[in-house]
């Protein structure tokens, strides 16, 4: 079918709206409706990826209008991969988090699914579009729906976190919009490919430079690159499980994708690395981000919050790799988009399971968890190893490429930061494991600490997905050579 690219975005959109209608008609139907939408979307994304691998990039004119007037979807290997990632994670999460959503959001759950699907629609649209202004609109859809979802979380702190998120998010979006404005002023076009052609050769133009800086700054704020990260930890920590599970792996990764898209497709490698010479400064910034994220994570008492700071650190990985200015670094960054999405997803799935059973996840609440929730902890341990970078989990291999890229460039500080970050993560996670392993969970004094623990696992639907995603980390690690050779290297040529 020719319309797969449209279906990827339209399916979750339509079903999201439908589900909203069904809240008044038949509440119970809204969940299967959104689930179907995401399923169709995920299948179409896989179809598109297969087609792109087979026969090269796809251009899809929305509504039959030709670019540069109409909006164009342009799908190459990179965004085909990200599309699969987004729709796949969204679909799996909806299954895994259904019970938890009912528990946390209660009555409002059925109308919540509408917001959820709109959010996913936004992420998918951002990834698929080939139009700079359309990108802005979709970023805003994504952001607005996330503000709403954050606010639905923790009754005391959710709204405040959301407000904070709104303020900074709006600033980021305005920066980006302003940048797009400058580009439009200079070129008269909003189509990415078109703009790229039009600004070629205008190396010295201060308009283009301003546009570039504004766009990148805007995206950095949205992606929570240190020091623009302050909104992220609270927003992700106090949001409902179903949302934090999907936003943590996807949001920042999609923003990194946009950054790479702007760098490669719109402004061009040559402009950034040979004209502006920004690489060195940004790699230093990324180095600091990697370390700062890790150090701040060390200070956290809440498990979920600790993980959010790890995300801040991981953003540094990808930004550093992308700005390294060589193929190895970019390979590492793109591979890390994929790997980090998977492993963050696995981590948050496991944490979601814990929240389902023990509600509060301060690290001290996790006593005896290995006995109580062995399967969840198994998944958590695997995901943690991937973050630390233990082979054969996938986290190791992207780190491998990133460090190689840094060595090739001579950016030893970045390589060192990645190693130190691995060590910090090892400390972080083993601190958690120690509490889960050594301290007995039973509060009564009569219980023998060596007695068989009572297993109180999360529901099967949550466990199965969490387990599968954790195992997929190993599979993805073993096949990272394949991912690099069929997707990333052909994309970078």
């Amino acid at each position, binding site marked *: 079918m020719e319309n797969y690219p449209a279906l990827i975005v339209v399916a979750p959109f339509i079903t999201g709206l439908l589900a909203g209608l069904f809240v008044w008609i038949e509440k119970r139907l809204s969940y299967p409706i959104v689930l179907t939408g995401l399923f169709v979307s995920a299948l179409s994304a896989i179809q598109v990826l297969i087609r792109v691998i087979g026969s090269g990039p796809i251009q899809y004119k929305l509504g039959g209008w030709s670019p540069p007037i109409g909006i164009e979807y342009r799908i190459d290997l990179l965004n085909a991969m990200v599309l699969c990632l987004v729709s796949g994670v969204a679909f799996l999460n909806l299954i895994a988090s259904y019970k938890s959503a009912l528990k946390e959001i209660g009555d409002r759950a059925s109308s919540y699914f509408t917001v959820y699907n709109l959010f996913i629609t936004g992420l998918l649209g951002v990834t698929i579009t080939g139009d700079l202004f359309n990108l802005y609109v979709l970023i805003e859809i994504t952001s607005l729906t996330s503000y709403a979802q954050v606010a639905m979380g923790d009754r005391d702190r959710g709204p405040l976190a959301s407000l904070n998120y709104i303020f900074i998010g709006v600033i980021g979006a305005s920066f980006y919009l302003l940048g797009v404005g400058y580009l439009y002023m200079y070129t008269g076009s909003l189509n990415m490919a078109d703009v790229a052609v039009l600004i070629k050769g205008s190396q010295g133009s201060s308009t283009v430079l301003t546009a570039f800086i504004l766009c990148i700054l805007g995206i950095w704020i949205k992606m929570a690159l240190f020091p623009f990260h302050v909104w992220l930890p609270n927003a992700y920590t106090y949001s409902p499980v179903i949302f934090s599970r999907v936003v943590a792996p996807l949001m920042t990764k999609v923003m990194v994708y946009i950054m790479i898209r702007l760098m490669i497709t719109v402004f061009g490698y040559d402009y950034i690395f040979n004209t502006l010479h920004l690489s060195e400064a940004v790699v230093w910034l990324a180095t600091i981000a990697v370390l700062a994220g890790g150090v701040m994570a060390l200070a956290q008492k809440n498990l979920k919050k600790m993980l959010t700071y790890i995300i801040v650190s991981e953003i540094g990985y990808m930004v550093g790799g992308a700005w390294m200015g060589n193929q190895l670094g970019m390979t590492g960054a793109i591979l890390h988009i994929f790997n980090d999405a998977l492993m963050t997803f696995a981590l948050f799935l496991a944490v979601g399971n814990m929240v389902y059973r023990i509600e509060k996840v301060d690290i001290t609440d996790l006593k005896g968890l290995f006995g109580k929730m062995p399967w969840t902890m198994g998944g958590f341990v695997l995901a943690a*190893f991937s973050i*630390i*970078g*233990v*082979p*054969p989990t996938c986290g190791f*291999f992207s780190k*491998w490429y990133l*460090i*190689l890229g840094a*060595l*090739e460039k001579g950016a030893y500080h970045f*390589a*060192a930061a990645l*190693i130190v970050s*691995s*060590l910090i993560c*090892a400390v972080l996670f*083993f601190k958690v494991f*120690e509490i889960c*392993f*050594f301290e007995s969970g039973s509060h009564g004094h009569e219980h023998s*600490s*060596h007695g068989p623990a009572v297993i109180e696992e999360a529901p099967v639907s949550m466990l199965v997905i969490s387990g599968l995603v954790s195992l997929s980390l190993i599979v993805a690690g*073993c*096949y*990272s*050579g*394949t991912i*690099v*050779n069929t997707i990333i290297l052909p994309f970078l040529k």
Partner: protein
Amino acid sequence: METIISIKPLLAVLVSLLVIPVLVSSSDKPNVRESWTFIAGIIKFLIVLSMLPAVLSQKQIVLTLFKIAPGADIAFRVDALGMLFALVASSLYIITSMYSIGYMRGLNEHGQTRFVSFFALAISATIGAAFSANLLTLYLFYEVLSLATYPLVTHHQDENSRISGRKYLVFILGTSIGLVLPAMIYCYHATGTLEFASGGIFSGQLSKPAATVLLLMFVFGFAKAGIMPVHSWLPAAMVAPTPVSALLHAVAVVKVGAFSIVRVITGIFGVDFLLSFHLGSLVAAIASITIIVSSCIALTQDEFKRRLAYSTIGQLSYIILGVALLSPKGMTGGMLHIAMHAFGKITLFFCAGAIFVATGKKYISQMVGIGKRMPLTMIAFLIGSMSIIGLPPTGGFISKWYLVLGTLEGDQMIMLFVLLSSSLLNAAYFMPIFYKAFFCTKEESMFEDKIEEAPMMCVIPLLITALISFGLFFFPQPFLDLAKLAVKGFIGG
């Protein structure tokens, strides 16, 4: 050299991995569980054994699992050195499994299923390390082994084991991530390959200072080999149940460390390269210091297992010393010592465990007169300690003989002196135990004059290993041939 592509190395690794779910599912039927452990152990040993003829006829068995990057795949290659190590580890695994039954049931330990499962995982990783074709694969299994051993070390789940576990992680994981990982990536960056090659992978990319730093990063980074000052995790790890100390901290884990260093010296740097920079003597000097200092510390230890641990630290450095001599005889001796020390030291640990099970005694000062109560155990102890000292008629004599010849061959009189004085020290810390066990007056004896050995399952294994130690003096062929073949490959190739 002829190569055969075969799935056998993978099977050898997978057998004990695949049996883990079975072990877990039969956790409430200990006898069934233990039978599965045996079946898996025996199959593993037979698979390893079935590759021996091919290796002895100078063929290599290879298998590439996953292509990660050019020159760095996840791949197996069975050569003489790997075969030697795998034979030792897989045969002793069977004996240790038997011993664990006696020990764990004798002490009524908790969490036995967890124990046997992680034991199986650890032995899988050990065989994987033995058969690794390149540094990446070796690193992979090295890390898996570190992590699989952690729950074994901290098995008792009390404060003491928490502290030891932390020490274990800091030293093992800290050095492997902090030193080996960057060194490995640097090697790949400089040469584009990590494949173990008989002449090393460097051809002029390294200056002497760089080579020195890199070599030291590897030597100290593989902290499992217990080179001072990264040795102190090993005495701490003695809080583990004795089967763990016996198989893992006398054979598998520590020898994976020594084995890795040997691999790096022979396969990454190459003998000629190190000779040209005179770097062998640097490593030999570090090993010598470790030998002497650890033997002196062993003299002062009253806790039986700790004394054995310090003895192990010294003996591991024999392996490193032998290989670092870079002379054919010395290298043969070093590699042979992997096997000879394994059988001797595991006997000693089995004795320590048997005494603990039978009498609850952990300190040497409490073992006066124990020979009258546990004569079989103490006679096995005599044979084991003779092998460690290097006295005929035990296997330890053969490896020490070659080591001494190696020092003479290289005209390294200081090393000769180190070896000889270490033998005296070994005698000084082992012989008094044996002497006091049998030769004491009635008043001095702390035990009644009645023979009461540990459970059969504890005694039989230690008699078997003692017998093997004894037999290896007369029939060292399989190991000696393998060591000679390996040396021929590294020097002649």
